[in-house]
């Protein structure tokens, strides 16, 4: 037994920390690349992340919009809200893909390889961020076609897009945890992320909160999606100060990242 134990100890050094860090980055990029190839090859994914948000914009702009009373033009009110909602819904892809990989044994294969353990999750989140950014830019373009305009300058407009992306990424962390913890594609698809509907719709995304019943206002006024959309509107339109909603958004998002990123990592390590 000692004859076997001795070489074990000698081999424990492995690659240097610098090499490992380099590998972690390259592994993450490899997984990102793989995920993006899969994304553009599956028509359903493209539909979900490109066509569906466009339909939503047109629907709210031309069908529901006229019936929703807001100060100013509805399309100005709508765009930041719909961008936030779309960013949040991008997380469906994260959860479903991870559950699928777990179920099919892809994650087993990857975990049995000498690659960075962080890369599967990190690569997934990076790819989903790219995907989300593409979707957001498409919605902005469609928004411009139907009358939306940024009225607060270029830098705040870019800041709004970044905030929406970071918000989407935070929701993706929750989804990553959900997908890995449930580990079954169909369950994830049917009820894993059902909470996203009340969270995004019971907010200021599509209607002014003042039009909701009092008890619902209490929730809508104090939940993170409303803060994020408030900050996004302030950045895009410049009609109100950015700081109050922005600070609350940052606090919420930081909290979500800390809690759910670590939960997701734990779920990945334990995933079997």
């Amino acid at each position, binding site marked *: 037994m000692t004859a*076997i134990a001795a070489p*074990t100890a*000698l*081999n424990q050094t492995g690659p240097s920390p610098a090499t490992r860090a380099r590998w972690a980055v390259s592994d993450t990029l490899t997984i990102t690349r793989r995920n993006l190839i899969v994304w553009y090859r599956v028509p359903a994914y493209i539909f979900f992340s490109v066509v569906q948000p466009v339909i939503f914009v047109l629907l709210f702009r031309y069908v529901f919009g006229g019936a929703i009373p807001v100060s100013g033009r509805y399309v100005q009110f709508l765009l930041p809200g719909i961008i936030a909602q779309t960013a949040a819904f991008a997380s469906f892809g994260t959860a479903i893909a991870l559950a699928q990989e777990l*179920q*099919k*044994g892809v994650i087993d294969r990857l975990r*049995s390889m*000498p690659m960075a353990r962080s890369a599967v999750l990190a690569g997934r989140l990076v790819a989903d961020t790219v995907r989300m950014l593409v979707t957001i830019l498409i919605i902005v373009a469609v928004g411009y076609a139907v009358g939306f305009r940024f009225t607060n300058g270029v830098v705040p407009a870019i800041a709004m897009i970044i905030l929406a992306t970071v918000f989407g990424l935070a929701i993706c962390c929750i989804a990553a945890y959900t997908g890995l913890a449930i580990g079954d594609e169909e369950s994830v698809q049917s009820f894993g992320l059902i909470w996203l509907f009340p969270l995004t719709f019971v907010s200021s995304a599509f209607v002014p909160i003042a039009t909701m019943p009092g008890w619902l206002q209490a929730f809508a006024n104090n939940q993170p999606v409303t803060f994020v959309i408030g900050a996004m509107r302030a950045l895009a339109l410049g009609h109100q100060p950015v700081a109050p909603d922005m600070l609350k958004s940052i606090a919420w998002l930081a909290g979500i990242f800390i809690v759910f990123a670590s939960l997701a990592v734990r779920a990945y390590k334990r995933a079997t």
Partner: protein
Amino acid sequence: MPLSEVSSGPAILAEGLTKSFGEVRALRGIGLAVPRGTVLGVLGPNGAGKTTAVRILTTLLLPDGGRAVIDGHDVLRDPAAVRRSIGLSGQSAAIQEELTGRENLEIVGRLYHLSWPDARARAVELLEQFDLVDAADRQAKTYSGGMQRRLDLAASLVGQPKVLFLDEPTTGLDPRSRLGMWDVIRSLAAQGTTIMLTTQYLDEADELADSIVVIDHGLVIAQGTAEELKSQIGGDVLEFVVPDRSMIDAAVAAIKPLGEGEPHLDADTGQVSVGAGSRGSDALIDAVRSLDSAGVVTRGLALRRPSLDDVFLALTGHAAEEDGQASGRRRGRRRGKPADNQAATGRRGRAS
């Protein structure tokens, strides 16, 4: 690193591995040693603990107790080094179906930290070796089951592993793909790769493995070469078919005094078999005489060496008629958590 020391031990060594999933004791103290360059067949019914053992040895699962050393690296203390030495091909093809065969292999190559040119070259090599050149640039979802398994196996070889784990590599394949997979595994073994192969199929272990361990209910219940296991049930088997079913009872009565133990009768096929000890051709001659004097006509009368089927029946007492059902059920089921994988199947499974 003193290479001589590392390479002197067995490629795979496991001692007293235990693992429970809740109430289910999947492994109850498994020990095995696989010398370098040999093929170990791990044979057992569905739910015996084969997959759990493989998952522990490939660092995917922590054992509750015991130890394991792969290629000189302790699975618990240095899993990263173990991962550099092994390849794993699991029960389901763990490939990305939307990617082409070539892309799948290139990406695995990159994850083994090959440069892009090296990853490409390695992918080409493996596509050739596994007869996937024509399909290389098609998405893997267009592949047949056999091709997907070959691609999966190719992916497990990208890192040129010294020790290869194949968890039921032919489960769910049609007979022709199965033979193709056997050829591939044989040639890997011929190149000196140490292979641990789990299977529910006795003929597969017989064909491919240098030595065999039989696992049932989380314990090793027998081990040795195929020949050694066969000799455990003692002697040859005399076997024949009685086409006229009304004569079966007469045939059994005629043969009974000649054989060792009770004759085994398969009512569906009319096949009768009985242990013939070590009397060789004398047993055959006696059988012909007494069947003839009883007026029984037989077909396919032969003396054969016992198959692993006979061995498995003798060792576990699992009933033969459950044959096939278990493997069908497995194929149909999705891969669940190990706990229900073990629990759901229980005693039902059996090697075919």
